[in-house]
């Protein structure tokens, strides 16, 4: 069965994934909106940059984050200058790394659903004298709801399943950076297969339940067109 250390890693994983998902939605929404609407020549470059974490193997990305966020790295010098210290081996560092790693999984579904809304609903909202914020919350958000749900699901689950990045920047500190994927890996490496099977089983069951609930919600609440 699961011991206290295993339970702690499950809880920590959930915390990292939840915080990272909220942050990714906050960053990803304006970014995806801009990418969906802009005709700027920077668009392709930005699109490529956002997708880049998909290409790099996670441990490689993790290694360069370790270098960049370390005391000799650019980000590390910046955070030290801010008086925050350096990010590796800390919970916030884990969240920052997760956001960078999983951001494409949030931006891309959002961008796709923003693009599919098209001009018409926005023009209609404008003729009804809706301000930009009002338009966003009463027109775009309801229309893009499936996009938001998909983005949250993908961002959350991808963070839960992440391993390489965490392994590199985390330092395997109990209750601070030791997440469930690292713990399962450690069990396997220590040849403790029973413990590994239990923990992996719980992780699968948990993820399956979360996904099923979300997809059920997605299915039973068809999006009403706010302008019809």
């Amino acid at each position, binding site marked *: 069965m699961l011991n206290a250390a295993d339970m702690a890693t499950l809880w920590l994983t959930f915390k990292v994934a939840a915080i990272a998902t909220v942050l990714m939605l906050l960053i990803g929404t304006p970014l995806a909106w801009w990418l969906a609407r802009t005709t700027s020549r920077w668009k392709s470059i930005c699109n490529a940059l956002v997708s880049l974490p998909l290409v790099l193997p996670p441990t490689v990305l993790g*290694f360069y984050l*370790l*270098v960049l*966020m*370390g*005391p*000799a*790295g650019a980000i590390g010098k910046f955070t030290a200058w801010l008086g925050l*210290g*350096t990010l*590796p*081996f800390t919970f916030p560092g884990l969240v920052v790394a997760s956001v960078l790693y999983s951001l494409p999984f949030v931006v891309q579904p959002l961008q796709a659903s923003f693009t599919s809304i098209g001009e018409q609903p926005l023009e209609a909202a404008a003729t009804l004298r809706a301000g930009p914020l009002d338009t966003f919350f009463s027109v775009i958000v309801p229309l893009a709801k499936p996009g938001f749900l998909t983005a949250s699901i993908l961002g959350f689950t991808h963070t839960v399943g992440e391993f390489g990045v965490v*392994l*590199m920047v985390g*330092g*395997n*500190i109990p209750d601070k950076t030791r997440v469930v994927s*690292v713990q399962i*890996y*450690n069990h*396997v*490496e*220590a*040849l403790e297969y029973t413990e590994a099977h239990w923990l992996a089983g719980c992780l699968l069951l948990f993820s399956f339940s979360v996904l099923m609930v979300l997809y059920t919600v997605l299915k039973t609440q068809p999006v009403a067109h706010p302008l019809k």
Partner: protein
Amino acid sequence: MLHKHLFRPILAACLLLIAPVTWAETVLVAVAANFTKPMTEIAEAFEKSTGHKANLSFGSSGKFVSQFENGGPFEVFLSADDKGPIKLEQSGLAVPNTRFTYALGKLVLWSATPGLVDDQGQVLSKGGFKHIALADPKLAPYGAAAVEVMKNRGLFDKLQPLFVQGENIAQTHQFVSTGNAELGFVAFSQVIDNGKIAGGSGWIIPSDLYKPIRQDAILMKTGAENPAAPALMQFLKSPEALAIIRKYGYDLAE
């Protein structure tokens, strides 16, 4: 005319070229990551002296053990510990009575910053650092040895809150070399150059402060029929191989 004169010598030369190829075999070797550099050199010497070729795969010993248990193809296993080979011996996957200690690992307290670590390790009690890196003691023998050293010095409880743990000794070295951890316990073989610690500062920990880190090799049953596999096991005990092992900062088993 010319053709006739040249035909026989050329044919002979061709046969001579083929000869070693037909007699030589290739052996698949699973090598613990910390032994990457010395083993690469030993494999070259092995090829030169026996004509056999050693194909090396590097990785963590724990992963290799689970691969062996699920049909891994390697014929010789050079582990970072003695636990894995003993397990494979007991489960009947390895050839009995072939296990031996090919190297003893040496532990170093190391920092990328010159002058931070003194040659007596007093820095451990003095403090003045935020993180101290070590390999996960549950997974890596170098990690377990590091814990032993701190316990022997009576500093374990004081230092434990500062621990950052690498999954293996290579990752632990990255934590220290990038400066994210001010100092850490790494393998001497990782920081050695010409018999001395290259760069930064370090303390070569006296071997009476920790139990010997035995790195065992074992012949797997997959390699029992391949003449190159026992030949490599034998070559690991040759003076030539022992000199290479020593050069890279390992001790030899008595």
